[in-house]
C-alpha cells in the first residue's frame, strides 16, 4: 500500500526516547529510518538491508566498522568505528544504506537484533513484510 508505517516504527525503534512524537519531531539528533518505502506507481514496497551472504558493503568498508555476524548472518555496523566515508553507500546494489549526517555515520537495518521481531514487520498493517527463514533449496541470491 505504501503507507510508510514501517518507516515510522523503524524510527521509533531507533529513537533513544522511545516516544513517537519525539522520535519524529523532537529528538536531536533525529533517528534515521533503516527501511525506506520505494514508490513508483503502481509499485510500492518496503526496502531494507538484504543481509547478503556475500556482503559487498562489508568487503568495501574502509575501517572494519561493517561486519557480518557469522552465526546469524546479520550485517551489522559498529558506529564507533564508522567514519562516515560512504564507501558502503556506493557499494550497496540496493541503495539501502542511509547516511546519518547528524551523527556522521551510516544507518542500516540490524533486524532489530536486540528486540526480536523487526519493528517494520511487527507493525506492517497489511502483513506485506514477512520475517522468515527460508529453508528450501530455492536460493534468494
Amino acid at each position, binding site marked *: 500500500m505504501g503507507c510508510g508505517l514501517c518507516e515510522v516504527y523503524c524510527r521509533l525503534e531507533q529513537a533513544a526516547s522511545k516516544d513517537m512524537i519525539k522520535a519524529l519531531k523532537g529528538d536531536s539528533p533525529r533517528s534515521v529510518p533503516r527501511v525506506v518505502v520505494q514508490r*513508483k506507481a503502481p509499485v510500492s514496497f518496503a526496502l531494507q538491508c538484504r543481509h547478503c551472504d556475500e556482503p559487498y558493503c562489508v568487503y568495501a568498508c574502509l575501517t572494519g566498522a561493517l561486519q557480518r555476524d557469522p552465526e546469524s548472518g546479520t550485517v551489522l555496523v559498529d558506529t564507533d568505528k564508522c567514519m562516515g566515508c560512504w564507501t558502503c553507500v556506493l557499494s550497496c546494489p540496493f541503495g539501502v544504506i542511509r547516511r546519518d549526517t547528524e551523527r556522521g555515520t551510516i544507518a542500516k537495518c540490524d533486524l532489530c537484533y536486540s528486540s526480536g521481531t523487526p519493528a517494520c514487520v511487527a507493525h506492517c498493517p497489511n502483513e506485506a513484510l514477512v520475517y522468515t527463514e527460508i529453508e528450501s533449496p530455492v536460493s534468494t541470491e
Partner: protein
Amino acid sequence: MADNLTEAKYLIIGNSAGGIGAAEAIREVDEHGSIAIVSDEPYPVYSRPLISEHLAEGCSLERMLYRPADFYERNRISTILGQKAVSLDLAEHTLKLESKSTISWQKLLLTTGGLPIVPPMKGIDREGVFTFTRLDDARAINQYLGGAERAVVIGGGLIGVSVTEALVKRGATVTIVEMKDRVLNTILDEEVSALEDTALRQAGVDIITGHVVSEINGGGKRVHGVTLDDGSKIPCRMVIIAIGVRPRLELVNGTGIKVNRGIVVDRHMTTSHPDAYACGDVAEAYDIPYGECRLTPIWPNAYIGGRTAGFNMAGRPTEYPGGMAMNSMKYFGLNVVSAGMVVPPDESYEVITSNKNGTYRKVILKNGVAVGLIFAGDIEQAGIIRGLVQNQINVSEFKQSLVADDFGLAFLPGKLWRPELEVPAGAVVSPVAAEEPEEVIAGE
C-alpha cells in the same frame, strides 16, 4: 610473535586489506592449516585511509585498527611484522627475510601493495619532504609540523587532496601543484573536478594546474620552497609528494612471475606460478567496465581480490567477480562518489546527466550497458547504479530514470529486484525464533 616459524601452509606477504581478506577466506575453508603474514610495517592491520584522520585529528592506532586486537590470535595467524621480505625462491617454495631466516610455504599470496612514486628531482632528500601512504608517513609529518605551516603538495589526486585537507585542519597553508589541468582528474569529470576545486579554494587552498615542481629548494638541509617548471618560486617549509603509487614489485622481479605494470593474475588471482597468487595494489586484476585486467589500487578491490585468492589457496575454486575503480569523497563537506569509467574515451559512449536540487548525476553507457557514474550532492542511491555497472546490465529501456532526483530501486524493471525481495515461489518457510534473526523478506 613467530620468530621461530620456519614453514607455513599459507604465506601472505602484506598485512593490509588483501592479506586480511585472504586470511579470513582461508579460515572459512581450512580451520587448521598454518597461516603466516609478513609485513615490513610493525603494526597490526589498520585502515590505511584513516591516516588522514590520524594527521588531522590525532585518531589513535587503536581507533584505526581494521580488525579487533585479538584478530590474529583468534584466527591462529602467525605474524612476522616489522620485517622486510628480501628474496623469493619459487622452485624451493621459500621466502627469505631481512633477518636471514627462511620460511617455506605451500601457497603464497603477494599483496605487497604500492610504493609512492617519487620522481628524481633536485632537493628531494631535504628535510621536510614526505610521502603519504602509511601510518609512519602521517606520524613523521605530525612530528615535523610547526605552527602556521606552509606546505606544497605535489599532485592533486586522492592522496594529495586527502593530505591537503588534513593539513588545512591543522592550520597549514597549502598549495597544490597538479601537472594536469584539474584536480582529481583520473576519477572525476571536468564538472565535478570544478566543484572540488571551488571547495578547496574556499578552504584557503591555492591550486596551480598545468605545472610541475622542478626543484625543491632549501637552506642547509631544510626545505625553504619549491621552483616550478616556469621558474616561479613558492616558499614553504614542507613538501608532500603525492603523485601516485606504483606496484611494489621488487620481490617478484627476476623470479619469472609474469609482470606487466603490476603482477598479472587470472580470474582466480593466480599468478603465472600455480602456487603463487596476487591481489591488491600490486596486481592487475579484472576490471569489469574496461573488460580487461588493469591496476585499480583501491581498498575494496584489494579485499575482494584477497578473499578470492584465499578461497583458491585453500582449495575452494572461486572466481574473482571483477572490480572497478570506485571512490567516495567528502573533502571539505562536499559529497562525491564515482565508479568505473568517468570520462568516456571516445564518441561511442553515451552520457546521461542531470543537475537538479543541488545534486549532479552522471551515468555513462556503452552499447546500452552502464559502465560508469559520478554523483555529487545526494549520493545515497548511487550504489544501485554501481550495481548495474558491476552486473553489466543493459539499461537502455530506463536510462533516463537513472538520473531522476527521486530515483530508487523501484525505477528498475521488476525482474532486477523481485527475485531479491520476494519469498521465492515454492520456498519452504518457517517462522524465525525471536532470538535467531535471519532475514527480512519484503513484499509489495
